[in-house]
């Protein structure tokens, strides 16, 4: 059994006696193995604390409902709300009848435009020829083909996760959808100022490749986030997909 499997079985408590002996032996004799296991144990403690915090937040969010004594409010608004809901259902079903077939390419073309550079002001000077600056200049000039390797390099050197966002956008423009999807997924492993925006572009990439269920998941993630960027568009696109 390889060490990764041993580790997985250890953390999921699915480890046999024999495997546990092997695990303990490796832990004592192999420093690299020990380091990895200790790191994962630390993640275990940290994620437990974070998980509790999240759950507490969830419970506290229920409290706001009790605090507002919303019963009276609900009954007051119930009638008009029901009317609005009924109208919405009618409107949506008409919409559904009209748009019952989805043309993915057309949707993509309607909604997609590459993002502007919102990260880094460009300095055009003889002295500032940093790779990053060049990447953004090329991107602004819409030389996407050239911009891709520049962003890729700059990202590898600086690990500035926002650069993945622009690399993904460039790939989308050029129709390299599968590659764009991979880059966006990598960007989503980070939490930076542009992470939520990536849900939008990843959703479009999924639309283009006819993976509509996945597109919906991304759109919902954007709509439920605090990000205001493309929120209206996301809602209207989601409606069309549903």
């Amino acid at each position: 059994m390889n060490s990764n499997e041993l580790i997985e079985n250890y953390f999921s408590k699915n480890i046999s006696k024999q495997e546990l002996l092997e695990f303990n032996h490796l832990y004592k004799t192999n420093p690299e193995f020990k380091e990895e296991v200790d790191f994962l144990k630390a993640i275990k403690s940290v994620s437990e604390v974070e998980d509790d915090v999240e759950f507490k937040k969830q419970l506290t969010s229920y409290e706001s409902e009790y605090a507002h004594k919303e019963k009276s409010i609900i009954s007051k608004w119930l009638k008009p709300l029901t009317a609005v809901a009924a109208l919405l259902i009618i409107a949506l079903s008409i919409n559904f009848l009209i748009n019952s077939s989805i043309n993915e390419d057309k949707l993509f073309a309607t909604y997609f435009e590459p993002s502007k550079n919102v990260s880094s002001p460009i300095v055009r000077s003889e002295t500032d020829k940093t790779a990053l600056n060049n990447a953004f200049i090329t991107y602004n000039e819409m030389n996407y083909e050239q911009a891709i390797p520049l962003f890729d390099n700059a990202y590898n050197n600086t690990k500035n996760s926002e650069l993945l966002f622009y690399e993904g956008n460039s790939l989308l423009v050029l129709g390299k959808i599968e590659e764009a999807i991979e880059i966006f997924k990598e960007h989503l492993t980070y939490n930076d100022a542009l992470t939520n925006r990536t849900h939008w572009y990843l959703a479009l990439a999924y639309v283009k490749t006819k993976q509509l269920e996945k597109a919906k998941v991304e759109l919902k993630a954007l709509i439920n986030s605090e990000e205001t960027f493309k929120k209206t568009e996301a809602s209207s696109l989601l409606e069309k997909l549903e």
Partner: protein
Amino acid sequence: MEHHYVDALKQGDEKLIKELYGNYRNEFLFFSKKYNIAGADSLDIYQESFLAIRKHALSGKLYDVNSSFKTYLFGIGKHLIYKKLKEYSKNQSYELQVHKVDFDYEEISIDATGNLTKEQELLRHYFKQLGKSCQQMLTLSFYRGLTNEEIATLKGYESEAVVRSQKSRCLKTLKDLIKKSPQI
């Protein structure tokens, strides 16, 4: 205990959790009032009890418990109420025995959660910089101890292999974040 309640806590079924929370909230606040617990503390204790019962559900040990969800929840609550009363009594002379509450629940002790070490606090800082889906993936794998197959089923990933690669991607990102930082 009612298995579907334990499942709801384990799987994070928000609808049912919210319902459970609402079902016993007022009764619990009334219950702790009998022990002269202040209003704000009561609510805090109720939430802490919920947090603790969820922890027990996650660990899997609730399936074998004979008492009902409510009895268990109130049992934990009682334990926390006693703890709070001891806190009160440090500030002023306070007799526990004063409360002769006869209708009652059996007290259920819970372990206090350990604090994080300095290194772990630092790791937590980077952990929070991960995207939500990565945080969730690592929580499910390491804290909750789910296998890759279980995560795939729970979160609708296509296969165990997708979970595996996503997990290693998340771990790599976390390690990169740590490496990139000047502090370590």
